[in-house]
């Protein structure tokens, strides 16, 4: 964070105009947070919109029917129409509801779904905070969502909501354990909790040879990947684990009594949580931003970075005054005409494309499974977690730890000599 503020102050603001660079840290940070939060919320909304449409069209295809195809070409504007409908809908609260909690719950769930995006990389350099404990952080903030869901289940004073909320909270808390252990397998192999570093070491031949998921990298990680994905299905209450909103018995589970924009918050949070699970699986197991042909665009050692180029373009005029600000801005814009600017830019863009494309493939598998598999019983859900996923994920952690010790001779040597 400190580095980022420093970068903004010295490499961006100071070069546009020296007085801007002298702005205090806290103000720069606050501005960066406000400017940075907007695209994240927008990205979350776009994901939710794209996948409500995608889910219904894929469901239509799987069930040999059409799905939404009337609003716009092939129905692509359907999510917009739905959004307007949800915004304009009357906000109804049950008479017996606990009003403050009823109104707070959707916001908590939404914030809980938003927070993991802080540590989630989109590409090699496109990450809001490349924090050291990234994996741990992404797992931890699911807790806020759980609290929000329990609140949403209790506040409307409805039995369907309460049952759904309790089921979901139990399911999320239970499946957090095997999911965490599966990620621990990767952490043990990679030797770091930083999502960016975990992803960086998975390049290999042709950008695909060294993904964690391949059995030749580690058979334990292969097993862990499938278990993580199953755990992710359960933690995001996707079929076959969608007991918490089982329509035939619980109406709609914890959001039965919610309508309008409050329901939309739950809806967006659900799709955001699905994306987070898929993106974490992509970063930790499927090589993240690595993919074919990307290394062709890799910047050579010592090649100027984007911020270097921007700096060179604007630092010609360092004198103070309004005219120089505009001259410097023009200089910054002129960088857009240079291949040296576009090459690293395309490098990042291709990385982001690979990462999001792989995540979207996993999301597609989630949707595919929902419309293929029947719902299982609650005792089967818990059996699956405690007696299947938990022991096998523990096995994966042990195996990965053993693999790390016996393949990393430095570590083995350190361990053997530690007592002396």
């Amino acid at each position, binding site marked *: 964070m*400190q580095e980022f503020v420093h970068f903004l102050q010295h490499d961006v603001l100071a070069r546009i105009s020296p007085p801007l660079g*002298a702005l*205090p*840290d*806290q*103000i720069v*940070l606050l501005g960066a947070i406000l400017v940075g939060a907007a695209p994240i919320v927008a990205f979350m909304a776009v994901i939710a919109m794209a996948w409500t449409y995608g889910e219904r069209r894929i469901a239509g295809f799987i069930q040999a029917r059409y799905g939404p195809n009337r609003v716009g070409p092939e129905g692509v504007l359907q999510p917009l129409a739905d959004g307007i409908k949800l915004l304009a809908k009357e906000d109804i609260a049950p008479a017996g509801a*606990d009003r403050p*909690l009823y109104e707070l719950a959707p916001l908590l769930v939404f914030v809980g779904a938003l927070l993991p995006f802080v540590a989630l990389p989109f590409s090699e350099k496109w990450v809001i905070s490349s*924090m*050291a*404990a990234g994996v*741990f*952080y992404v*797992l*931890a*903030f*699911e*807790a*806020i969502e*759980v*609290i929000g869901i*329990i*609140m949403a*289940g*209790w506040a409307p004073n409805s039995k369907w909501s*309460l049952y759904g909320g*309790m089921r979901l*909270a*139990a399911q999320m*808390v239970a499946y*957090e354990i095997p999911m965490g252990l599966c990620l621990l397998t990767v952490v043990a192999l990679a030797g770091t*909790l930083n999502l960016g570093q975990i992803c960086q070491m998975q390049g290999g031949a042709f950008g695909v040879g060294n993904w964690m998921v391949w059995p030749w990298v580690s058979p334990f990680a292969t097993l862990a990947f499938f278990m993580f994905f199953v755990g992710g299905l359960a933690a995001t209450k996707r079929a076959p684990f969608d007991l918490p909103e089982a329509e035939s018995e619980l109406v709609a589970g914890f959001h039965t009594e919610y309508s309008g924009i409050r329901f939309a918050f739950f809806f967006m949070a659900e799709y955001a949580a699905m994306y987070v699970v898929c993106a974490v699986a992509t970063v930790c197991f499927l090589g993240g931003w690595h993919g074919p042909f990307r290394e062709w665009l890799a910047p050579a050692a010592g090649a100027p970075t984007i911020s270097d180029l921007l700096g060179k373009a604007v630092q010609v005029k360092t004198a103070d005054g309004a005219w120089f600000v505009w001259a410097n801005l023009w200089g910054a814009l002129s960088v857009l005409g240079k291949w040296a600017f576009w090459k690293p830019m395309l490098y990042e863009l291709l990385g982001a494309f690979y990462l999001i494309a792989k995540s979207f493939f996993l999301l597609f598998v989630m949707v595919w499974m929902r419309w293929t598999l029947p719902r299982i019983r609650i005792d089967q859900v818990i059996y699956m977690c405690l007696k299947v996923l938990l022991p096998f994920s523990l096995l994966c952690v042990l195996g990965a730890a053993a693999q790390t010790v016996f393949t990393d001779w430095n570590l083995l040597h350190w361990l053997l000599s*530690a007592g002396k």
Partner: protein
Amino acid sequence: MSDFFQHFGQTVAFIAITAVVIGSALAATFAKSIVHASFALFFTLLGMAGYYFLLGADFLGITQVIIYVGGILVLLLFGVLLTSRSLDQLQIRSRASYIAASAVGLAVLAMLWKAIIRGPWQHVTPVVPQQTTQSLGRLLLTDYLLAFEFSSVTLLAALIGAAYIVRRREK
């Protein structure tokens, strides 16, 4: 100038977090329903994590969230919500309980106050630690290995005990 803003920002953040912690703690203490008290506790626990983040202890802050919010508070809420619904209307506080709780609270406050006043405070220039996670991990597996293993065995014993208590009894 910049230094002033640095301290100013930290002070504002500290006051904001403290307001949340104290406000929600008071709400948890005086809330009429036990469910409201539990949800107020959520903000107290989250505010404590905020203090840790403010001090640069990111790992500790995340641990606070995962253990207290994700573990203990969820367990507490399950306990409250799965027990009888009439508990919500139940008068959970009486005059006697107020007096006893105040006495215990004041005693703890007096003890803390004495510790704060008498404590040999050393003024150290704050250093923002880099990579707290790595250093913590290294220390846990070297210098504090015994304490680490001891607590994990204790937790394992608690798990086995819980499984034993809830087992299906054969007749």
